[in-house]
């Protein structure tokens, strides 16, 4: 009894370092909050600048114009970051998810079979809408990724049979199309990501469609959290040669 009481007491004692961190963070938060409060409420941003150059961008939506034209370099690198994340996940682990879900309710199966085509349609609509209203590659890609996750957790029987090579091509499609358009612009109009004015609308929709497909596949592949089995280059030597080992 006497030995447990001090131990309990020691456990409940507050660490002075934690208290120090707490007060430091509270001070920083208070200063930042004060900065937010005294910032002018009417702060001119870049919206007038964007509106002035919007007719040169090829699209009517200011967010899409900023995303793919005015700050296209930024978005190109972000698409590359998504690709790198999939590469990192796939080089660390293998997929253990597909086929391990156990029993799926028939209601869920029927629901997802109805819902998934509709979600693909919504994703395509969002990508198309991105040129003049709110929408675009990232929204469409997110809906596609959601559809992919739904199909994965429903454990549709054909999902483990999806061949790996088209999946890889789809994952790389967005970055490849974006980069090749950027390099084509470098040759055609003499500047990296400087779209020629006549073709800008077509090029932006092309980039958006390819990126939406890649983003959707990326999100679904990240949800699986590992590289798929089969058709892996490095597996052939380890299997001892004859045929495909793990199918």
């Amino acid at each position, binding site marked *: 009894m006497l030995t447990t009481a001090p131990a309990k007491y020691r456990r409940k004692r507050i660490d002075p370092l934690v208290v120090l961190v707490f007060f430091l963070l509270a001070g920083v938060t208070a200063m930042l909050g004060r900065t937010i409060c005294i910032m002018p409420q009417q702060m001119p941003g870049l919206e007038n600048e*964007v509106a002035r150059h919007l007719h040169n961008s090829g699209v009517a939506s200011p967010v899409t114009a900023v995303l793919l034209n005015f700050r296209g370099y930024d978005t190109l690198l972000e698409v590359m970051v998504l690709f790198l994340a999939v590469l990192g996940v796939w080089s660390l682990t293998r997929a253990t998810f597909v086929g391990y879900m156990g029993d799926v309710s028939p209601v869920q199966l029927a629901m997802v079979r109805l819902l998934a085509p509709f979600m693909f349609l919504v994703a395509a609509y969002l990508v198309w809408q991105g040129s003049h209203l709110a929408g675009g590659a990232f929204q469409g890609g997110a809906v596609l990724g959601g559809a992919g996750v739904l199909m994965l957790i429903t454990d549709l029987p054909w999902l483990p049979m999806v061949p790996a090579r088209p999946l890889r091509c789809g994952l790389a499609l967005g970055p490849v199309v974006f980069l090749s358009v950027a390099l084509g612009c470098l040759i055609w109009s003499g500047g990296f990501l400087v779209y020629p004015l006549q073709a800008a609308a077509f090029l932006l929709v092309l980039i958006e469609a390819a990126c939406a497909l890649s983003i959707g596949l990326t999100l679904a592949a990240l949800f699986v959290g590992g590289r798929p089995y089969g058709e892996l280059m490095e597996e052939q030597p380890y299997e001892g040669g004859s045929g495909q080992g793990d199918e």
Partner: protein
Amino acid sequence: MMSTNLLYSLTGLVLFALGLYALIVCSHLLRKILASNIMSSGVFLMLVSTAYRAGNGKIDPVPHAMVLTGIVVSVSATALALVLACRVQETSNVTLVREEYQHDTSGA
């Protein structure tokens, strides 16, 4: 309108501070990943609400475009971090990852 905007900004700041505190104090890797997610949510909320400060009904599209890409990038970064954390737990000493569990059992 103005006070709503201010409320969003301050909520974003509070989320950021909560996430930063948890990121420093909590030792568990999953908690650290969650904390960094909450921090990024706070930053996004603040950026989006700052876009409405342009006045006369206009919205600055530049922060919106940044947040749009940032959300997707933060999701993928979280996935990569989770896989890395699983890898750490598999390959390293269990006491390193489950320090709080050790603390509980040694204290009781």
